[in-house]
């Protein structure tokens, strides 16, 4: 029996897990991090565009601060987020960028003087201030008031991931790669660690710790069309679900990104549009201004994706063997800009489609279509990152529903969330590990180990009837056809029924390769696919029950955002032996919000079933603000009066900015 002990255990080696592990290591405790692949290969590396933080260095970022970042995030979420968490996040994001800079992440910097940029398809000259020279620059992204997205060409995630992973090596985080967590060990109340399977030799190992954190990313691979890496199968969230205790939250909130390239689904960053790229239809016509005159291509992702699909439905898509698509034109930015700031985009277009996007005219246009991109839902946690239902289990990053994105995430906010949550939740997690969990009953551990071995053995021994790949591919099709950008009650009902059937089938598959003590990719599919189906069912079932449209969740039969009935978070959990998740809800309290629900500023107007509490709370907020402003109170005091929030002092400290110092 192989049992490994450490103070803290982190599952997942992307930006969130690594950053949290560093926080634990800095507290003087031992930390083991398990990763399914070498950590520098994590999906975090795929972040191209950048990370939002209100540094306000560049001319187009002038006047930016946490308040604006918070407001954009709440609007972006379509009022589905936890506003206290959004505050914690906005306050810490500038510190996260600055910390990474100190760790050597080579952020693109501001050059003083005039600079030509493309805004609304027009070349425009902006003047960068002398005092900003050499500070971190930012580009424009959708749904934000200021240019706030800090970046490194279009390889932001790569550089951030390397910076953080190298820092983890420095702090002696014990990283074990090709190690997959397959079961959470718990005694019904408290998480004791995980059973993990070594993907190189099939060995089962129990990793025991005072606290366990899941930071395994999203679940995009339950969809046929996705920008996600092949490892983003949601199995980290699924093992939490399989405890029968932890809740997954808002799983129906799935983001579709407007510009993955067709057919491979590899992402072309939002930076393409942020930097001034535009969308065109079959006639070469720029259609977005007709739908969204104010924000055009830079409305939030859910809005742009829907507008694109709407335009395709009007017959304006480009026919191709892979279905209809639209065009993304970045050639208008000029070859020099593409080759410097969008180099990976150019490389992807050239390699996978034989197109040079810097070529002017239709020759350089890239075929794009909205595809699954981000999972707003995940393991529900408190603002500290700990599960409400299982002591000692924390979650952070895309695997978690912390919940700062609500029903739609703004571009640049997920990459920011990974490191920011890594800092904040990582610190709470380190405290927890220091103060909790002394006694481990090894009998419980032994029991879990032997059960897991028996389970895997039963998978290879069973002479099942079904092919695991057929089930998996059918699941992906069902999700794409019926639980994607446009949803209807009828389609969702069909999806839930078929997914349930597929789940039952997935329990009876035939594994040809019988080896347990070896790398066995077929066996991996056999235990992962039922988990993916559980996640898919949480998504589809949650979507079926949510009879409104909010953010990325769009119901054609219920097109309005229904604040009267749906100011609530979906919580799903799984009872062992069942074939459908159980669902319950968690109310969002409008009367505690700093920003009560209102119109987002983009998308269709008048599409809200209002809640009378919104107006009531808004009046309260206005009165407090007016009174305090007349008394000469500063923005921090006013904020605190409107909605106090907890945050570690080191992160809550004001952020210094040029021109305004700490104001």
């Amino acid at each position, binding site marked *: 029996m192989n049992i490994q002990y450490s103070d803290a255990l982190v599952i997942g080696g992307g930006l969130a897990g690594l950053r949290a592990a560093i926080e634990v290591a800095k507290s003087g405790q031992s930390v083991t991090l398990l990763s399914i692949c070498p950590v520098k290969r994590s999906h975090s590396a795929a972040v191209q565009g950048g990370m939002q933080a209100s540094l306000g260095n560049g001319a187009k970022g002038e006047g930016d601060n946490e308040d604006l970042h918070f407001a954009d995030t709440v609007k972006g979420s379509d009022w589905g987020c936890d506003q206290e968490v959004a505050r914690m996040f906005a306050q810490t994001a500038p510190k996260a960028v600055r910390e990474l800079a100190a760790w050597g992440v080579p952020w*693109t910097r501001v050059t003083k003087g005039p600079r030509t940029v493309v805004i609304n398809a027009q070349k425009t000259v902006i003047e960068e201030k002398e005092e900003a020279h050499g500070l971190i620059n930012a580009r424009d992204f959708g749904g934000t008031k200021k240019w706030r997205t800090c970046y490194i060409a279009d390889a932001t995630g790569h550089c951030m991931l390397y910076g953080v992973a190298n820092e983890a090596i420095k702090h002696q985080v014990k990283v074990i790669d090709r190690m997959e967590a397959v079961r959470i060990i718990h005694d019904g109340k408290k998480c004791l660690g995980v059973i993990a399977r070594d993907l190189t030799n099939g060995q089962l190992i129990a990793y025991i710790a005072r606290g366990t954190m899941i930071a395994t990313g999203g679940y995009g691979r339950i969809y046929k069309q996705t920008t996600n890496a092949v490892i983003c199968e949601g199995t980290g969230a699924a093992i939490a679900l399989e405890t029968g205790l932890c809740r997954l939250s808002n799983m129906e909130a799935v983001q579709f990104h407007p510009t993955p390239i067709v057919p491979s689904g590899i992402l072309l960053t939002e930076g393409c549009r942020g930097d001034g790229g535009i969308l065109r239809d079959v006639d070469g016509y720029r259609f977005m201004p007709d739908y969204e005159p104010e924000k055009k291509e830079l409305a939030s992702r859910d809005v742009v994706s829907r507008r694109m699909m709407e335009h395709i439905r009007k017959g304006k898509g480009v026919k191709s063997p892979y279905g209809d698509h639209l065009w993304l034109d970045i050639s208008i930015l000029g070859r020099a800009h593409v080759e410097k700031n969008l180099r990976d985009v150019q490389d992807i277009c050239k390699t996978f489609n034989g197109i040079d996007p810097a070529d002017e005219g239709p020759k350089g246009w890239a075929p794009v279509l909205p595809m699954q991109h981000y999972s707003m839902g995940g393991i529900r946690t408190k603002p500290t990152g700990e599960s409400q239902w299982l002591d000692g289990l924390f979650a952070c990053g895309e695997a978690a529903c912390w919940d700062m994105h609500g029903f739609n995430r703004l571009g640049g906010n997920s990459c920011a969330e990974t490191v920011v949550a890594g800092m904040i939740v990582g610190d709470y997690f380190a405290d927890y590990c220091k103060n909790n969990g002394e006694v481990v009953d090894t009998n419980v551990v032994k029991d879990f180990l032997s059960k897991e071995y028996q389970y895997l053995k039963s998978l290879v021994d069973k002479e099942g009837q079904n092919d695991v790949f057929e089930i998996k591919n059918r699941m992906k099709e069902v999700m794409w056809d019926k639980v994607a950008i446009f949803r209807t009650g009828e389609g969702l009902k069909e999806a839930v029924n078929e997914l349930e059937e597929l789940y039952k089938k997935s329990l009876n598959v035939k594994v040809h390769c019988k080896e347990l003590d070896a790398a066995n990719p077929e066996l991996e599919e056999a235990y992962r696919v039922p988990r993916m189906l559980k996640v898919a069912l949480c998504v589809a079932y949650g979507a079926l029950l949510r009879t409104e449209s909010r953010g990325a969740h769009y119901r054609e039969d219920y097109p309005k955002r229904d604040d009267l009935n749906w100011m609530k978070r979906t919580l799903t959990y799984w009872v062992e032996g069942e074939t459908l998740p159980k669902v319950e809800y968690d109310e969002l309290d409008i009367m505690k919000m700093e920003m009560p629900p209102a119109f987002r500023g983009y998308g269709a107007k008048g599409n809200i079933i209002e809640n009378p509490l919104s107006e009531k709370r808004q009046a309260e907020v206005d009165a407090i603000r007016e009174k305090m402003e007349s008394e000469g109170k500063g923005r921090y005091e006013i904020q605190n009066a409107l909605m106090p929030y907890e945050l570690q002092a080191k992160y809550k400290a004001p952020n210094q900015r040029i021109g305004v110092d700490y104001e």
Partner: protein
Amino acid sequence: MSRKLTIKAFKYNPLSKISKPHFVTYELEETPFMTVFVCLTQIREKMDADLSFDFVCRAGICGSCAMMINGVPKLACKTLTKDYPDGVIELMPMPAFKHIKDLSVNTGEWFEDMCKRVESWVHNEKETDISKIEERIEPEVADETFELDRCIECGICVASCATKLMRPNFIAATGLLRTARYLQDPHDHRTVEDFYELVGDDDGVFGCMSLLACEDNCPKELPLQSKIAYMRRQLVAQKCK
């Protein structure tokens, strides 16, 4: 017009007592812009679920899928089948790394060791107050650091390196590039002397035979040779002081 592709994949499980190294041949229909990633996924789903190989991003940015493709180390996800006129593609695992199974090798372990050897992190005594405005960096200097920060640790330069195959402890182009990256970064306060301690020997910068395959095969087109030469000049100058 579609044609038939012949994929010959190396199979061997070093942990098994009965497994012997051999090739298995698979035939499949070529589709437009087909990559080796697409081929291997089809093979696993329809022909041989037991074939081990590694992919993560499938977009040429994570470095997981490096393997020998007709004798040359390449990223399988970025390798198009149309570039092989006779339609025959032979796949083998990369040399120089510990073999896991079939086409899969352990690059993670090697790179973690390399990072520890060159102390691949910023060395700096200063405590940074992250509430304060960040240190100013000249924009061109930041861009130059980025140019050297683009290595994806795919291992292709390591597998391409004759010195590495003869001298197991050789740090290879990627390790030397990493030293150049930190020497270039103003956040790192290490001196040339410090780097001499780390890589100033035959397992480091003086072991390189300048055969150039590392740079020829690098999928990120990194300036490996000029940076090795740069490090060598710096360290020689240090030694001759």
